[in-house]
């Protein structure tokens, strides 16, 4: 076996990827598991998750309650068999992380503490202050160091997935350190590359969230599922888009308009600040349209009021929120209001997978935000994404390991690898002159923000589809402004932009074709949910021409779709 062959290749080193790698590596010490990531794993965007991880671990809670909250939150688009599996396994994963040292907050007796979160009917969000993602990611990463059969390829950028006869064969990757191009042979692979927030202008996501894995799968013919469902988090700092956790409301914070009213009484009277994210984000947009927002240099906003919680509680439960508000907007929430507005946060959609996290390509799996099982349907409830990464990360690791044990490597036509190498070095790197990626990137972000945002309509969605097509045309004229080989971040940005354009295309077209309003997908021209025609998942396929759309029925086990009221 040569140096670049691995039984299981995990693409991405965030929560889902690390959990998958550990699961696969622990199946047998003989299995070689590679983690290939464009950043050091502890830089992955899981690190920015704040509020917590939901699981039914307390006596007043049960699986059905967690499942129904999730399904209702999803506006009945979640697959109920997937949700049932998810809620059943989530507590074990939380305990497993606790055994690995994750410093979950404790109650006075020393048991794992829980807090309120939006759309949940009991307190079920396990947390580590308001830096849950950070603790979870570092716990996973540090635990992964225990396994000698996990091999890391840090700062390797995956450029393509190689498939022959619908069977996964390997990946191609660019080593940033020395600019070398590699083929990594694998028996099985797991896509765990997270979201694509960078296609939006105003996002909570880090710079690395460019939808790489979604685009990699889309390009080899794997459909992306439910891409029109883009979550906008209600509370982000104007200007930067930095996330102010839902935990701030979970711990008792208020949202106020410029009349200092808790305006959510007009939108989600029974839940108030603990309503689901899609509804609260729309409520904020509406308040601002009614002229009830505060004026700021980065546009209108509403206010998050934590003053009544007191310094002690803020320090204990929301220390990072305080630090972020102080550092980035110069405000101390102990005695001032935090300016907030909705911003892109999460993709409910992703690579189409089944309950085993298998994609339609044999040997290729996907987990975490990059994938769509689907448990989140049209709107994810806050604190369901971290346990989703753990539960389905573990399932993907288990199935990929099993697949690798039962199968051999497949034979690869090396021409395909050479074609990919030429694309990068001859078409992008060596091309004499061309346009800069920034020119296209900011136009793309602008388009998605304005036309595929919180409120959507036919006219603007059509314009967005055309605009993305135009930008893809423009992309053909991009060339690298840095022609060197070592740590060339210009070429990385170009490759990322290429992925972002594919993901944006999938989002815009999926949104155009869904002529109803459901969860986070709100069409002003079709304001009602339409179960008769759209109680189905969108599947979008890449073709030579424009994307092709198909639908897949939602799996319903025991909860019939009902009106979603809070």
């Amino acid at each position, binding site marked *: 076996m040569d140096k670049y062959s691995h039984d299981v290749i995990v693409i991405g080193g965030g929560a889902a990827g690390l959990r998958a790698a550990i699961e696969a590596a622990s199946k047998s010490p003989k299995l070689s598991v590679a983690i290939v990531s464009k*950043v*050091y794993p*502890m*830089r*992955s*965007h899981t*690190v*920015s998750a704040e509020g917590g991880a939901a699981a039914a*671990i307390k006596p007043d809670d049960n699986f059905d309650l967690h499942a129904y909250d999730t399904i209702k939150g999803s506006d009945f688009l979640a697959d109920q068999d997937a949700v049932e599996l998810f809620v059943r396994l989530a507590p*074990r994963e939380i*305990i497993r992380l*606790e*055994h*690995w*040292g994750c*410093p979950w*907050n*404790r*109650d*006075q*007796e*020393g*048991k*794992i503490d829980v807090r309120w979160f939006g759309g949940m009917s009991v307190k079920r969000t396990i947390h580590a202050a308001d*830096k849950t*993602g*950070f*603790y979870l990611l*570092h716990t996973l990463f*540090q*635990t992964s*160091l*225990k396994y000698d059969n996990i091999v890391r390829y*840090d700062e390797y950028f995956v450029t393509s997935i190689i498939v022959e006869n619908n069977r996964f064969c390997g990946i191609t990757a660019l080593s940033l*350190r020395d600019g070398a191009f590699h083929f990594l042979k694998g028996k099985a692979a797991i896509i765990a590359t997270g979201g694509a927030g960078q296609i939006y202008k105003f996002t909570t996501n*880090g*710079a*690395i969230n460019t939808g790489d894995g979604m685009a990699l799968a889309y390009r080899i013919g794997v459909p992306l599922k439910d891409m029109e469902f883009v979550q906008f988090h209600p509370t982000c700092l104007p*200007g*930067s888009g*930095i*996330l102010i956790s839902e935990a701030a409301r979970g711990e008792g914070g208020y949202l106020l308009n410029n009349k200092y009213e808790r305006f959510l009484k007009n939108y989600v009277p029974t839940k108030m600040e603990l309503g689901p994210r899609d509804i609260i984000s729309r409520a904020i947009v509406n308040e601002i349209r009614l002229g009830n927002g505060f004026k700021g240099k980065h546009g209108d906003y509403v206010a998050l009021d934590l003053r009544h919680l007191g310094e002690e509680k803020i320090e204990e439960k929301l220390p990072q929120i305080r*630090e*972020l508000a102080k*550092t*980035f*907007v110069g405000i101390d929430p102990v005695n001032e209001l935090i300016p907030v507005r909705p911003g892109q946060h999460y993709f409910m959609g992703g690579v189409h997978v089944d309950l085993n996290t298998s994609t339609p390509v044999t040997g290729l799996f996907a987990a975490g935000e990059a994938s769509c099982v689907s448990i989140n349907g049209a709107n994810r409830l806050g604190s369901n994404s971290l346990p989703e990464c753990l539960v389905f990360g573990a399932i993907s690791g288990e199935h990929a390991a099993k697949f690798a044990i039962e199968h051999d490597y497949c034979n690869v036509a090396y021409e395909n690898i050479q074609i990919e190498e030429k694309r990068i070095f001859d078409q992008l790197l060596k091309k004499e002159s061309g346009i*800069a990626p*920034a020119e296209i990137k900011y136009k793309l972000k602008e388009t998605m923000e304005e036309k595929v945002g919180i409120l959507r309509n036919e006219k603007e969605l059509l314009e967005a589809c055309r605009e993305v097509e135009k930008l893809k045309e423009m992309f053909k004229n991009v060339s*690298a*402004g*840095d022609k*060197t*080989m*070592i*740590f*060339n*971040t*210009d070429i990385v*940005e170009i490759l990322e932009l290429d992925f972002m354009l594919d993901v944006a295309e999938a989002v815009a077209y999926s949104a155009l074709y869904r002529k109803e309003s459901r969860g986070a997908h709100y069409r002003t021209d079709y304001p009602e949910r339409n179960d008769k025609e759209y109680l189905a998942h969108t599947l979008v396929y890449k073709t030579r021409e424009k994307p092709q759309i198909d639908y897949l029925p939602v799996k319903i086990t025991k909860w019939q779709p009902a009106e979603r009221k809070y």
Partner: protein
Amino acid sequence: MPETTFIIKRYNPEKGVFYTSEYKVPYESDTTILSGLIYIKDYLDRTLSFRYSCRMASCGSCGMVVNKKPTLVCRTLIESVKKPIYIEPLYNFPIIKDLVVDIDIFLDKLKFVKSYIIREKEEDLDKEYIVKPEQLDLIKHSSSCINCMLCYAACPVFGSDEEFIGPAALAILYRYLHDPRDQAKSERIKIASLKNSAYMCSMVGQCTVVCPKGVDPSFHIQRLKVISTLNNLFS
């Protein structure tokens, strides 16, 4: 909009030469140094390389030296520092290109201190360990390290001898040593007692000064010295 100058120490690895580049960067009261660097990359010079991601002081990617001080540039406003702004790669690490340094040595140290819970056997998954809030408080600061490497850039001991395990990895050793769930105390104290471990620290304390997350490696390392010494005396 006011404008300032970024003076950046560059390194071209293909030619093996250092040089500086200067750029004019417009800024507002809330523009961070990172935003300034992204502006340069997007509009002025695509050959400039640096790492960044979360822009909220969590991922630890964007550690650099600003006006001689190890700094996370995403959380530092242009307005708050002396201008023109002089930016260098993190001290004490091999430079890969421009502001990008090689931190692999830290990852080896992290593995060396066994940065994971060690138990004779893993408990069943239906049982959580009881950890009192005050026990958790013991590891509150030492578990907050984001691996940004500012402390290594500020540490003169690591600067003169890279064998030194160094501030972040020792803080993490302290963190696992004080975790009530861990069962490898003596193994960890052995690591703390090694020649290149806690005793090597000369108590300059700059690691604590530059830490953006309130970790206090200097304190943790002194505690490790005490623990090691007591252990050696009484064993």
